[in-house]
């Protein structure tokens, strides 16, 4: 029977199951297929803290949420249209994310007595009346998968591992997707194991065909391609974009890339990604600890390479002293912090923006350092490229702040061509001849930037270090006047970077008015969505997202003062808001969420409405 195809503007799905169920892979495949089809997509993987927590437990639930649409989407969605639950625990953890009358697809085999007990159910929720508000599709996915592979001669464990493909196939049918991209992916992934190619494709098709023949649906759905700006796109995750940005900066500066790093969640994927690019001259060094990671980068920078180190909050804390050394040495260094929940070990797999103060002030002494953040997964490319440009052109360490949300999230990216990227200008000191004046390592140009003098260059032999430098010569100096002068000039050098960065723009709304929502980092998508919604509902509100946090764009203060109220949503206890209040003496208000998960659109809308009310009352 031919089914009716119903059009949808946007759809949010959450895949949930045990951490061994292949949930991330299923979600990623659905995302990539939808992106290739032309939908706009935004994703949010929600990993459990343990790699393999005991099977069937609440702690072991892995989730992957995505929103795809025929219109632009900027968030993975507030609430879901579809919940896929592979077991009772996954069902329990995610049911609250499902909208009323939403669709639940469950693997009934994951609701046996043992699973129910592990999830803390006395009786099966599938038989509960409360599910009447939803549309529940119950499939024994385990049994169907086994049936599909009955002739393959595979063990039960191996067979069960393909269950995720059944779900994927089923959803592909439901949302009228092409299964070819995933088949291609399976062929590449299991190139060395033909049996697994055959098995996975069989199960994928079995799921698809089950959707077609089982009369589960009276209608299928279609989400048309989105009208994104013209161009060629790919799907990309934040950490991947950061890695590509570094390779691009290496190419555009003509410097070899050195990446010194120590494994840490959620930054390690940048290391994995870069280690694949040896044919680009990329040198990755997995150091013995965080301190060696940053120190090796400093050594490499002294030798003339584009030096980068990355970590998350706890690792950045360990790097603090060495970052201070780089500030004294005045050499280029990019420090990436993929932020996670803190303090201490905190919540490694959860997202937070609580290391802004650490980036700003987390070193001994007066140690100013530029800070740049990205707005979204694909923006990590531009932001890290810009961090490299500032580091090299201004001879300074630079912080690039990402976070777990954008590092692991993905979205379509209209990638640039190599030619369209700016050249990063490297200023290295030239060989000195006998009659040339004495080389002064700390002599500065009009931007207060000193020359990069590389070992191996004749006549430039010089010594630098962490002890206070004498003006121009760079020799050790304890002179009181000199110290004050050097502290001031290091600060002025960073402040002068404001001359080379773009002015702050209003993202949406008018450039003056009652309420401005000022964000930074990965809150961009949710603020954009909320502000758009408010404006459509006739509320006067504007949105600006700061990428350059140190120094701020020159016009930021004036821009902020054109609004009666500035509200600053952050996934922390109020950090940018303190800096804004300090620098501009305005009564900015913090909107803070510290739950390890991003804001929902609804939360921001509520905050805007409250701010608008307060302005009216005043």
């Amino acid at each position, binding site marked *: 029977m031919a089914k009716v195809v119903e059009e949808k503007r946007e759809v949010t799905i959450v895949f949930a199951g045990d951490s061994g169920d292949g949930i991330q892979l299923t979600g990623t495949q659905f995302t*990539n297929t939808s*992106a*290739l089809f*032309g939908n706009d997509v935004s994703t949010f993987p929600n990993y459990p803290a343990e790699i393999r927590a005991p099977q069937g437990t609440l702690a072991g639930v892995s989730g992957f949420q995505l929103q795809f649409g025929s219109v632009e989407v900027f968030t993975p969605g507030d609430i879901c249209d579809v919940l896929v639950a592979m077991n009772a625990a996954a069902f329990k953890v995610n049911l609250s994310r499902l909208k009323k009358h939403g669709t639940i697809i469950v693997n009934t085999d994951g609701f046996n007595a043992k699973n129910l007990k592990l999830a803390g159910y006395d009786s099966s929720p599938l038989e509960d009346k409360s599910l009447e508000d939803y549309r529940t599709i119950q499939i024994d996915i385990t049994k169907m998968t086994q049936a599909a592979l009955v002739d393959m001669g595979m063990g039960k464990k191996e067979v069960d591992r393909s269950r995720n493909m059944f779900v994927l196939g089923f959803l592909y049918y439901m949302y009228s997707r092409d299964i070819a991209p995933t088949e291609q992916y399976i062929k590449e992934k299991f190139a060395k194991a033909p049996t697994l190619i055959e098995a996975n494709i069989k199960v994928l098709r079995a799921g698809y065909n089950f959707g077609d023949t089982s009369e589960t649906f009276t209608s299928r759905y279609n989400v048309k*391609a*989105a009208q994104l*700006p013209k*161009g*060629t*796109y*790919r799907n990309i995750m934040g950490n991947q974009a950061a890695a*590509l940005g570094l*390779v*691009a900066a290496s*190419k555009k500066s003509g410097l*070899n890339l*050195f990446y*010194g790093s120590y494994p840490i969640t959620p930054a390690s994927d940048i290391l994995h990604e870069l280690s694949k*690019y*040896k*044919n*680009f*001259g990329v040198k990755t*060094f997995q*150091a*013995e*600890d965080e*301190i*060696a990671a940053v*120190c*090796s980068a*400093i*050594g*490499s*920078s*002294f*030798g*003339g*390479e584009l030096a980068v180190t990355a970590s998350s909050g706890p690792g950045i804390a360990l790097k603090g*002293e*060495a970052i201070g*050394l780089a500030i004294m*040495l005045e050499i280029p260094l990019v420090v990436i912090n993929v932020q996670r929940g803190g303090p201490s070990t905190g919540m490694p797999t959860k997202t937070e923006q609580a290391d802004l103060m650490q980036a700003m002030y987390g070193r001994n002494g007066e140690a100013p350092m530029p800070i740049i953040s990205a707005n979204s997964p694909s923006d990590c490319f531009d932001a890290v490229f810009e961090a490299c440009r500032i580091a090299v052109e201004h001879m300074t360490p630079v912080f690039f702040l990402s976070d777990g949300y954008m590092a692991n999230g993905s979205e379509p990216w209209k*990638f*640039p*061509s*190599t030619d369209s990227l700016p050249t990063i200008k490297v200023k290295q000191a030239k060989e000195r001849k006998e009659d040339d004046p004495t080389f002064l390592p700390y002599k500065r140009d009009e931007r207060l930037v000193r020359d990069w003098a590389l*070992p*191996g*260059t*004749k*006549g430039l*032999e*010089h*010594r*630098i*270090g*962490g*002890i206070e430098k004498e003006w121009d010569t760079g*020799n050790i100096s304890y002179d009181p006047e000199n110290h004050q002068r050097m502290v001031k000039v290091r600060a002025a050098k960073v402040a002068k970077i404001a001359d080379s960065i773009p002015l702050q723009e209003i993202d949406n709304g008018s450039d003056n008015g009652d309420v401005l929502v000022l964000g930074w980092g990965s809150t961009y998508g949710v603020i954009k969505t909320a502000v758009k919604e408010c404006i459509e509902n006739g509320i006067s509100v504007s949105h600006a997202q700061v990428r350059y946090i140190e120094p701020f764009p020159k016009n930021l203060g004036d821009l902020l003062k054109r609004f009666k109220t500035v509200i600053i949503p952050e996934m922390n206890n109020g950090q940018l808001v303190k800096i804004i209040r300090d620098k501009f003496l305005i009564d900015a208000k913090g909107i803070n969420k510290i739950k390890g998960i991003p804001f929902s659109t609804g939360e921001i809308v509520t905050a805007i409405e409250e701010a608008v009310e307060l302005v009216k009352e005043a």
Partner: protein
Amino acid sequence: MSTDTLDIQLTAKDFVTDQEVRWCPGCGDYSILKQVQSILPDTGVKKEDIVFISGIGCSSRFPYYMNTYGMHSIHGRATAVASGLKIARPELSVWVITGDGDSLSIGGNHLIHTIRRNFNMNILLFNNEIYGLTKGQYSPTSPEGKVTKSTPMGSLDHPFNPLALCLGADSTFIARAMDRDVKHLRDVLTRANDHVGTSLLEIYQNCNVFNDGAFEIYTDKGSKIEEALFLEEGQPLVFGAENNKGIILNDGYPKVVDLTNDSYSLEDLWVHDSSDRYKAQLLTTFFDNPSLEGHLPRPFGVFYAADRFRYEEALKDQLDLAVEKKGSGDLDALLSGKNTWTVA
């Protein structure tokens, strides 16, 4: 160790900077500085291709006095900085200057990891068994019971045996010298520099302010002859007045024998072979407190030298191989990835 040969012959003076040397008068560091400056002209490496990197401590001021490239980094991290520099610029001649606190306490981790990676660099470990710059606390090489400012009732720390530690980390070159035997120091410095791989040279250095005479027993003319054992390649282990004593291996255990009676002759002795790791291990255990009855003499010279691949060379091989296999990186192809779609 590296790079092009010189067109003009440099002298020790070429390596002296205009900076006033500020170690305490009588410090052992002066001698080490002078010996390093005096051997460098003969290495044939250009001044601009040499880099000295130090951590923090008295000895770590060293780079300021060397007219080469240099970095006075932070406490304990010189080896980590040097590792990055070697990866960036394998052709440079890199020297790490460190002390017993810098390399064995705060920087212990970086030391052992640098050694196992075997970067082609020289580490000079100035061991004075005390913290000098912070004015006299015990260090990780101070003997048990050492009374210092921070241990008025004596230190409770059992000391490190630095060469045994480094050999345990699979060092490819370990040696020991002392500040006051300048000719021997120059010889060992030259051999350390000639070694391709990480050379670890421990130098007994007298801190005449906070730990004066810590190594006097090995440097004083009267006792040196009985207490110091100089290792010479292919030669039997002999020491004592007119080489009247030797070391034999007795069932695998070292034993001091008297060569003046007829029981033992030179032919019976342990012959030094720096390629023998087992014997090198035994030599590192010649670490007894010299006040103990029947103790073994303290060896000086090159204990062990072996050839093993260098990290920076192996990395370069991987980079070359990657280009050979995949071709030189195409950024546009990388940025687009495999799966793209076009919005018209």
